[in-house]
């Protein structure tokens, strides 16, 4: 069936099977391979993207559910050659190792900061609790999100 999905601000369309998962639409039909697939069961969050501004797990979202809606992926975080503060925070605070969970973590972190620009560490831990990471033990991810919170604020006040 035919779907039209606005992905990262650009309209995309495809003739797809109704059962096609959104993660596969993004990865295989659009070639946006920053969104990763890790578990099938909504537990790991490697596939986290935004649907109409809210984070969803694209491994348990059908592509047809995104028809007529807006999807944002990790590829859209960098604008005009400048990293989003969450991306920079992950680099500065060593918030990633193998990098596989990172795109999902980044999308979840950006969603949190848009909602709550100055979250405490408990709030950050709750926000990313649906995203699994096997490498970092989460500590540096929390610090990375704090880094992003602090630097966004600094830019605004400056």
């Amino acid at each position, binding site marked *: 069936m035919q779907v039209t999905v606005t992905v990262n601000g650009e309209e995309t369309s495809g003739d797809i099977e109704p059962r096609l998962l959104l993660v596969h639409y993004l990865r295989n039909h659009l070639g946006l391979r920053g969104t990763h697939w890790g578990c099938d*069961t909504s537990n790991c969050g490697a596939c986290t993207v935004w649907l109409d501004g809210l984070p969803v797990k694209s491994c348990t979202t059908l592509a047809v559910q995104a028809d007529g809606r807006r999807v944002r992926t990790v590829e859209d*975080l960098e604008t005009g050659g400048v990293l989003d503060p969450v991306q920079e925070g992950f680099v500065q605070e*060593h918030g990633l*190792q*193998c990098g596989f969970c990172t795109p999902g973590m980044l999308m979840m972190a950006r969603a949190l900061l848009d909602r709550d620009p100055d979250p405490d560490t408990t709030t950050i831990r709750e926000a990313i609790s649906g995203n699994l990471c096997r490498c970092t033990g*989460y500590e540096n991810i929390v610090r990375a999100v704090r880094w992003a919170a602090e630097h966004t604020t600094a830019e605004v006040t400056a």
Partner: protein
Amino acid sequence: MTVTEVPTSAAGNPIGFGRMIRKEDARFVRGQGNYVDDINLPGMLHGALLRSSYAHARIVSIDTTAAEAHPKVKAVITGKILETLKLAWMPTLSGDVQSVLATDKVRFQGQEVAFVVAEDEYAARDALELIEVEYEPLGVVADARRALLPDAPLIRDDLEGRTDNKIYDWEAGDAARCDEVFAHADVVVAEDIIYPRVHPAPMETCGAVASMDKVTGKLTIWTTTQAPHAHRTLYALVAGLPEHKIQVISPDIGGGFGNKVGIYPGYVCAIVGSIVTGAPVKWVEDRSENLMSTSFARDYHMHGEIAATRDGKVLGLRVNVLADHGAFNGVAQPTKFPAGFFHIFTGSYDYPAAHCKVTAVYSNKAPGGVAYACSFRITEAVYLVERMMDCLAFELKRDPAELRMQNLLRPEQFPYTTPTGWEYDSGDYPRALTEAMRIAGYDELRREQAARRADPSDDTPLMGIGLSFFTEGVGAGPRKHMDILGLGMADGCELRIHPTGKAQLRLSVQTQGQGHETTFAQIVSHVIGIPPEDIEVIHGDTDNTPFGLGTYGSRSTPVSGAAAAVAAQRVKEKARIVAAAALECSVDDLEWEHGRWFVKGDPEQGKTMQELAMAAHSSLELPEGVEGHLDASVVYNPPNLTYPFGAYICVVDVDPQTGVVKVRRFIAVDDCGPRINPMIVEGQIHGGLADGIGMALMEVIAFDAEGNNLGGSFMDYLLPTSMECPSWELGETVTPSPHHPIGAKGVGESATVGSPAAVVNAVLDALQIRQADMPLTPAAVWRAMQGRPLRPDLAIE
């Protein structure tokens, strides 16, 4: 320790050791990593595996007619077809054989039965549903303790002459001396301790893209491997393909943890699929396939005994292990040591006598056993000795920190030879434990605990404090002792210095997140003084890197890091000859500082490494026998393992109403020698500590009586999230390895090895009971409090 100031490059990076953000992050934070599932080739087909629903059953028939008729299916491959290619079975890493696609029987739930190649992944999976397999169910060995009973079903009837399920009996240490010690000891404490089956579960599952070019005869395989060179050789040996026509590429790897060391049937099927169809074939397993069929870890059923004097001096340690290896003996470890390095089981203590016996058995479970950052089973050994130390403290009513301090090896005992013959290179254990206790505020914690226990009106959660001390043995290993399937465990390294002073370093090891592209550049930078941003680290492609056995067992820095340091030292010495020629002096007149050779007493007269690189490629006349250029190629054969160590303290609060454990604090003092990049080292430790929380409290691959896997998805196999992990509190001591060129010891697995015992000891301290097995889920804690401990690994009463 004296701190040498490290100069900083124009880009702000340390020229040598120090905190530096990672080179690899630029691509990962942009979603531009290149993992196996990101590889797409023109005309590529997709494979999927049909897996057994039974744990043990005879295959009566397989009918693939309907699957073959599916319009998008290009090939259906069964064991019968593989038999014609002599590929139905493949060797394991332990000298056993493993079925690629089952021909006679299935031996565990999830075993590979047939492979479909289709135009897309969805069609391939549809076609699996069209394959009719008739099974004749057989009796199941789901509990290792039943594997050797006379009426146990014979699992490996494919092996000629085999009549039971025993793989081996193996022992180490001095049994007679141990018996003598135990016969006369004041105190003997015995305990049954299970290290249950767990799974490394990297976020990226395993997979491969195979492409056989029929014109050139070249096979290229992009695959999730921690050991690309070893895989290339094994493919050559197994499939009879010429090794120079095989290129194994390990692109970005989404975590390994030992899960990606071996060769899985899916990889072989992808290769066969490409040969059969003439097109590239991608196969990527799903999460359930990963959890149910790829290399698990542990499954050690241990009976430990500790002998001591009444005042707490340990005299002897004895252990009997029943090891469940699953349906095929596929453990990845040096050939000479069938139980891995388990026999480094006296840990960090001064045991005059020790003996261990390991009996390994087949069961109707997935094969594996050596994985999940275990340092070839030192994990199991550390867990045993640290639990036993707490059992002794419990019996003697001693403080576990004080009892450990009494028995730790003393600095003057190094180099120390263990009762089972391992030589620890260096250590100062009391210093590390003292530091951990200082950070924790140990005495104050004990006072808080005592006050709460003494107050009958206190209905807050039960407070527990747990310790563990570990000694790791990593950097396998010396060629005279260690090989895997006959391949010695030395690693190559090539350093090329370009004329303009930029460098490329080619490694045999393969990062799965450890940050080799950064750390190894810093090692070279440390030695030859050029900025780390000017050094490109190349790895993970067998056509473009020298041979070596790969990254696992925390071996990259101890072995390959040493190779890089030695290669850099050779470059530096060659540059000295070039400098002498350029400055028209003797090499003996030259002195080195900050990336520059200069004339002693005349620092103005000197040449930087960059200038010398150009000079080495120029027409500058060099001494007889010196050819020019600055490149170096090295193979490093480690003289010994390195022995990192550390002291961990965990503080928990246990809710007695629900059995829920909350980790309040975790203090980790690690000594891995000098830290090349402290940020990366701390990240490695953080990750391992989370593993410890997971194993101690949440993770287990359990089975029911029919051999059904009860941990086959992330809904059942629980991993720690940000909510279960506290904010880690780290400390360090630095005791260099005397035999490593830069003193580094390796750190990748230390925290995974050391931390589970600290968490379990803390929970048991809270409950004031001597023993309960991992994982200490709320149900397990509650049952332990009722005096009815749970067997966590079996849904069988």
